[in-house]
């Protein structure tokens, strides 16, 4: 390629990487992420534990009797008169008073009790109290009917659906780990899809802003007399793309390190909690709790990273070039007013958002027809294909998707450079999308 492209790319890369803001953002993001996860973990812990003191006046006698044997029962009992209690439960240091009137019929299905509280208790707290009380009554009734808890437990069944065709190359795999792989794949797919989405906007708008600044400062007039516009644009795309790769590589190292350090020092935050903060998709909290930390690590270790990482980088670059070339064309067409840019950006935003929301159906059915279509269609594939990688998509799909995407990259760079070369020298006029398409047909 033209040596001037590399001279331009080198400048674009070095000026950005040496900026204080780049260094700060690169260092602060992992720390902010760690603080966010830590905070989420802390909030979840704090939210699940109630610091409210609750006192029960039990006129049935059943609950108090059963609770005496149950060490995990969290509430206290009082024998005082209910009228007197209503008056001074607060002065005794309680926040909530529960009154259970005597049962008329000891086998009745529904039992009503009343609560007294100065502040309105939350729904979840009331439900917790209800279930604790019901547990005690159920236990009492089982005892009365001479049903043993072990007998009852022995009736229960639990069905786990596992992949019948386990990877034969991986003898260490147990069925449990097979399911774990799906969960991890979904999480990883979502994280990678989301990262692509961020990358397109962060670096795309970086390209757009820089093209616009060059146009407004008129430096571009000086530049185009030495560098052909397409080479100038390519240099900029390569330089900023390099910045993106550098930032991602640094984060790939820094984020795990910082998270490990923070999880070691923050009390009450364990890795499984962090994972459900990260898993916004279908992975529910309960499913993770069934696996040990060790199993998660093994499953992560067993992922085909040798495939995922290089393919992710190819799609990162492909997606970046397709979208940032469009952003470069927009940057060349706008003048002082950033609002114009937003208007022109709208079609791109819609396409990227479509791809992003497609992540959800695709990840719930990662080899379905929507997934296959979206991972081949070049405007969606940079977001969708990386998300599917952990589910072992067929080789031909990965290869075909890359071929289609790279052809699209080539086409878009050609197309947008034709808009760019006209746009950068066009001042004062507000460009519409229709007009930009006309520029494509202008002769050189």
């Amino acid at each position, binding site marked *: 390629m033209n040596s*001037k492209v590399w*001279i*331009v790319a080198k*400048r674009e890369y070095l*000026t950005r990487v040496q900026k204080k803001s780049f260094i700060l953002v690169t260092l602060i993001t992992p720390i902010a992420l760690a603080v966010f996860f830590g905070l989420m973990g802390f909030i979840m812990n704090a939210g699940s534990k109630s610091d409210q003191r609750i006192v029960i006046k039990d006129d049935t006698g059943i609950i108090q009797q059963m609770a005496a044997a149950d060490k995990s029962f969290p509430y206290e009992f009082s024998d005082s008169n209910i009228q007197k209690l209503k008056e001074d439960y607060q002065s005794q240091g309680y926040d909530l008073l529960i009154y259970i009137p005597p049962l008329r019929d000891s086998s009745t299905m529904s039992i009503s009790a009343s609560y007294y509280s100065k502040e309105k208790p939350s729904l979840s707290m009331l439900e917790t109290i209800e279930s604790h009380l019901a547990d005690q009554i159920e236990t009492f009734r089982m005892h009365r009917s001479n049903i043993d808890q072990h007998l009852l437990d022995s009736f229960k069944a639990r069905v786990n659906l596992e992949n019948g065709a386990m990877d034969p190359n991986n003898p260490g795999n147990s069925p449990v780990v097979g399911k774990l792989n799906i969960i991890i794949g979904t999480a990883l797919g979502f994280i990678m899809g989301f990262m692509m989405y961020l990358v397109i906007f962060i670096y795309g708008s970086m390209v757009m802003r820089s093209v616009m600044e060059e146009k407004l*400062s*008129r*430096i*571009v*007039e*000086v*530049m*185009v*007399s*030495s*560098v*052909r516009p397409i080479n100038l644009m390519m240099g900029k795309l390569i330089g900023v793309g390099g910045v993106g790769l550098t930032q991602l590589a640094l984060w790939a190292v820094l984020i795990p390190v910082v998270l490990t350090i923070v999880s070691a020092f923050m009390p009450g935050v364990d890795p499984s909690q962090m994972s459900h903060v990260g898993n916004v998709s279908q992975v529910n909290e309960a499913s993770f709790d069934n696996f040990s930390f060790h199993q998660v690590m093994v499953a992560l270790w067993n992922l085909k990273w040798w495939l995922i990482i290089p393919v992710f980088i190819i799609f990162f670059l492909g997606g970046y070039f397709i979208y940032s070339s469009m952003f470069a064309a927009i940057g060349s067409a706008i003048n002082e007013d950033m609002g114009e840019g937003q208007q022109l950006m709208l079609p791109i935003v819609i396409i990227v958002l479509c791809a992003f929301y497609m992540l959800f159906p695709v990840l719930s059915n990662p080899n379905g027809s929507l997934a296959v279509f979206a991972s081949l269609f070049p405007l969606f594939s940079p977001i969708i294909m990386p998300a599917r990688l952990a589910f072992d998509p067929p080789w031909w799909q990965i290869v075909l998707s890359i071929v289609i995407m790279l052809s699209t990259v080539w086409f878009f760079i050609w197309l947008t450079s034709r808009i760019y070369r006209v746009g950068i*020298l066009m*001042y004062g006029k507000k460009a519409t999308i229709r007009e930009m398409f*006309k520029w494509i047909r202008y*002769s*050189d």
Partner: protein
Amino acid sequence: MSILRLENVTKKYKDQVAVDNISFEVKRGTIFGMLGPNGAGKTSTIRIITTITGPDSGTVFFENEILNHTHPSRMGYLPEERGLYKKMKVGDHLIYLARLKGLSAHDAATKCKIMLDRFDALDWWNKKVEELSKGMQQKIQFIATIVHEPVLLILDEPFTGLDPINTSMIQDEIFRLKNQGVTILFSTHRMEQVEEMCEDIILINHGKNVLLGNVQEIRNTYKENLYEVGFKGSLPQQFNGGLELVKQFDHTAVFRIPDQDTPNHLLQYLMQSGCEIQSFREILPSINEIFIRQVKGISHE
């Protein structure tokens, strides 16, 4: 010996013809002026010469080769609208632009330092562009245009927005470069500069060639046989032989003599009539006047 030749160059933008069948030739080692009002097509023509855009029809020759993308590295181009990267250091910036003109990293650094030193600006090397005053930035822009030692220097409205010190600095530089054999093509809408500096000019209006040629020849072609006389005493009341008094103020009078007549006849006539002649000079039309006359003439047609 022409360094640059345009043949029937035409460039259309969607609703207008920016350059309409322009042909001209720039002789090596001369200063060539491209004149015309704003929007006449000067910048469009320059952009074709610098290969920023291509002509729709017509051909451009640079050093007798059809213009191609390798040629701009031998040209220095100072655009009318010019800027610099504000956050870059002066030295890095100059090296960057010089390298894009094809200089090696080592050559670029050496030449940029020598050039900055020649302009007494070497101590700006590590300053950011944004720390410089506007006049200093203009100096840097000019240095960037010539640092790779171009054989053809193209300056688009080089004097607009310059303070008087920088104006004379750039004027001196243009003459110095010319003496070194560099060819200079510059555009301006200020006609008086052209008379001072250029050998040849082209006048452009609405994309069309209005006038082309050597400045002195053009002025001679368009002269109206006007002579200005400074005198003492009084002028004769009547003139014969086709002599015409165009205007008179204090002790200066302007005469027009008939085409076949000579100034000597006018002088003789005045001396015979008792006038004392103190000064006598031919009035050549300024390029500005010629231009206005030409443009009006065309628009009347």
